[in-house]
């Protein structure tokens, strides 16, 4: 009798375990099943790490486009991540299923893209924000043709040139494109012939530096030294000592990330004395210098690469309309900031694509995503940014100069207009060429498509005067 009871208990336990397990797993499985009849979109930016400050900028940029072109209703004008309702495109409701939170590392980006696109079943991702995240996501989405990624603001070259999956689109320039024209400017205006470059040792640093090297060398300059501090370096002294002394080169290009810019320049001053702005140039990271960095005032006058936007551009109707709409939608957010603007353009393209595909996603959407699209800060081709065969934007660029702002601290002003910058730099970068790295690209004299065509910008107005 006891033996029978024992068997009954065992049977009961085993059936119970299996039943509870099936119920638990099935309930989770059912809960995550997708609703039909809606387009599921995710927006991913960074909420942690070096670019954590830009989360609301990216989401705000995307949702401004949803509000302008797809009837989206803002939930909170001060906080884009509070969400948006009522988005419709191509006859379907567009549901933002989640916001991704990156920290500029590939591992977190992968975790987030799996969560957003597999668990929450997003059909389209607008994002990510930074270079290596985009490399990781481009590789992830490559074997998943039904998913579509429109890059938010990432500047690495690989996603659209070397990896280039057919379901990945970028409606803004990469980090190299953003720097088009800066080499020619320092060559012509400051007389640089030999220069050293110090750049972050990761894909965005390499790509951004590649643009400077290519542009400067193309016109006849020589890069005599390349130095690579690891990302997130805080003490730059040993890397500064690897640079040639002032006098051995005409100038230095700085491609040292956001929070590292100030400490790197200070380390330079400690090694070689006060900075002379005419000997220093660099990429958009120099934009982030503020009055809080005591070295910042001495950088006033330096020429700096762009971010694909034209801060302070005047006299363009499309720009004025765009700024007015941003001010109405999210009053506190900066319309001319690249983190905001690039997400705006990506989301705008998505809405156009959905309208064309009648709300169909996957391959249909990819075929219908626009190959040219109106962009406020684009003057070439009647204000349209074109995509190349790798679905990468060919875009006007806007180098800037650091000036003394109204509050006495450093500010930036447009200094040049570089028309129609393509990702290949006129064939220098190709699908088969190695991705930018410590030794890539080589310093080569070459005729770039925009060489000799840079127009001077004065007080926010593009003049007809060619840079000499």
């Amino acid at each position, binding site marked *: 009798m006891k033996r029978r009871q024992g068997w009954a208990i065992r049977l009961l336990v085993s059936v119970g375990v299996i039943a509870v397990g099936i119920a638990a797993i099935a309930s989770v499985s059912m809960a995550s099943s997708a609703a039909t009849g809606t387009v599921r979109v995710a927006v991913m930016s960074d909420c942690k790490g070096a670019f954590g400050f830009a989360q609301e900028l990216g989401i705000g940029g995307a949702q401004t486009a949803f509000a302008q072109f797809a009837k989206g209703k803002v939930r909170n004008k001060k906080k884009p991540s509070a969400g948006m309702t009522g988005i419709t495109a191509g006859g379907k409701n567009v549901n933002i299923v989640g916001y991704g939170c990156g920290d500029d590392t590939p*591992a977190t980006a992968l975790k987030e893209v799996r969560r957003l696109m597999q668990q929450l079943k997003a059909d389209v991702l607008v994002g990510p924000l930074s270079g290596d995240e985009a*490399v990781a996501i481009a590789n992830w989405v490559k074997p998943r043709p039904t998913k579509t990624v429109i890059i938010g603001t990432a500047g690495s070259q690989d996603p659209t040139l070397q990896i280039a999956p057919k379901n990945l689109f970028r409606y803004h320039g990469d980090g190299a494109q953003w720097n088009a024209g800066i080499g020619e400017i320092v060559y012509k205006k400051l007389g640089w012939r030999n220069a050293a470059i110090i750049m972050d040792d*990761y894909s965005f640093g390499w790509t951004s530096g590649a643009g400077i090297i290519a542009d400067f060398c193309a016109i006849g300059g020589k890069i005599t030294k390349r130095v690579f501090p690891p990302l997130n370096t805080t003490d730059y002294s040993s890397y500064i000592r690897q640079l040639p002394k002032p006098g051995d080169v005409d100038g230095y290009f700085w491609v040292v990330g956001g929070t590292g810019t100030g400490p790197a320049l200070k380390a330079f001053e400690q090694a070689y004395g006060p900075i002379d702005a005419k000997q220093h140039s660099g990429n958009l990271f120099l934009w982030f210098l503020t009055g809080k960095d005591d070295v910042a005032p001495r950088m006033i006058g330096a020429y700096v690469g762009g971010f694909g936007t034209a801060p302070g551009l005047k006299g363009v109707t499309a720009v004025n309309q765009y700024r007015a709409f941003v001010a109405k939608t999210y009053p506190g957010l900066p319309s001319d900031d690249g983190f905001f603007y690039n997400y705006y353009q990506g989301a705008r393209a998505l809405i156009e694509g959905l309208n064309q595909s009648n709300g169909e996603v996957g391959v249909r959407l990819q075929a219908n995503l626009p190959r040219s699209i109106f962009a406020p800060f684009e003057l070439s081709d009647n204000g349209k940014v074109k995509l190349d065969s790798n679905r990468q934007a060919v875009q006007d660029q806007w180098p800037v100069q650091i000036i003394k702002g109204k509050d006495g601290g450093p500010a930036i002003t447009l200094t040049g207009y570089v028309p129609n910058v393509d990702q290949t730099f006129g064939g220098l970068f190709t699908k088969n060429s190695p991705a930018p790295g410590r030794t890539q690209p080589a310093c080569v004299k070459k005729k770039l498509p925009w060489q000799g065509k840079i127009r001077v910008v004065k007080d926010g107005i593009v003049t007809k005067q060619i840079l000499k």
Partner: protein
Amino acid sequence: MTLSSTKALVERTIGVGVLVLALLAPVLVSDFWLDTVLTQTFILGIGAASLVFLSAYGGMISLAQAGLMGIAGYALGNMVTQNVPGGETKGLLLGWNPSLAVVLAILLTVGLGFIFGAVASRSFGIYFLMLTLTYSVIAYLFVSQVTQVGGFSPIAGVDEYTPGFIGDVVNDRQRLYYVALGVAIVIYGLIRYLVRTPFGISLQGIRDEPSRMASLGYNVALHRTLAFGIGAFVAAIGGVLFAWWSGQLSPSNIGLAATIELLVIAVIGGLGRIEGAWLGAFAYIVINNEVTNRIPSDGLPVIGGTFNTVIGIVFLAIVIASPDGLVGIWDRIWDLARSREPKQPAAEASAAG
């Protein structure tokens, strides 16, 4: 039937039930659950099992296991990926045979594991912990600073180059799931077998009384080194599977966060029993996914914070309530039942016998 044998029977029944569920999982759960939750559970569980093995049977809490997993993954990634048009862009891109690369990656990791183990074998407690943490930091700095083997950017496309007997794990995720499940079962069985061998018994003796074992003539350092090498072997297999599952490897898969992640998994599951590794991995991954989806973008109400805050609270609660993790709670329930069981008088018992 005694309570101990009943417990063993119930555990076996649960084990069979879980195995049946695991085998049926592809028809029971969504693709996301299968791929991201369950497959990852088996893989991270293997990594955690290497830590639990060292801790439970060798008395060594190693912080090097995530680093060893990463070394195997990076070695594999560098060996198999190729420099072809539209191919990968980072790493050495050697394009070697995937089967050979798997063997070499595991051998390299085990070799390093023996070296690491030999250096750390005479250290105990906090010193052992710090030494093994150093190994992980060295591995992290190596792969992130030596850009030829990867750098800060991910080595990608590792999952496109699997041995023929593994097949296409990019498009057939069920295949990878069953591979991970099978390997996890083999690793579990291997460790259970190993700890019953003379080596395993003496290792447990060294765990409890290293001085006494040394005085009995056992080579304590050699036993600990061998155990560390075995732990490296298990971690290397986990690393290879992780590389196939993720398809990409970046320094953050090796860094401090990954090291702590594996330790948290092992502690949540329980450092005292090998089953805890997979239980902890399952709990950690489920909490990770579910909490991330439910927390508002600006953090938890009142206390703020995100997933790390939640997992930190869970970690604290488990450490306080049950230092032996979730498996420990199970054991305590049975201990409680045993303590309430009426004791039979010895005389009665002997008369009955």
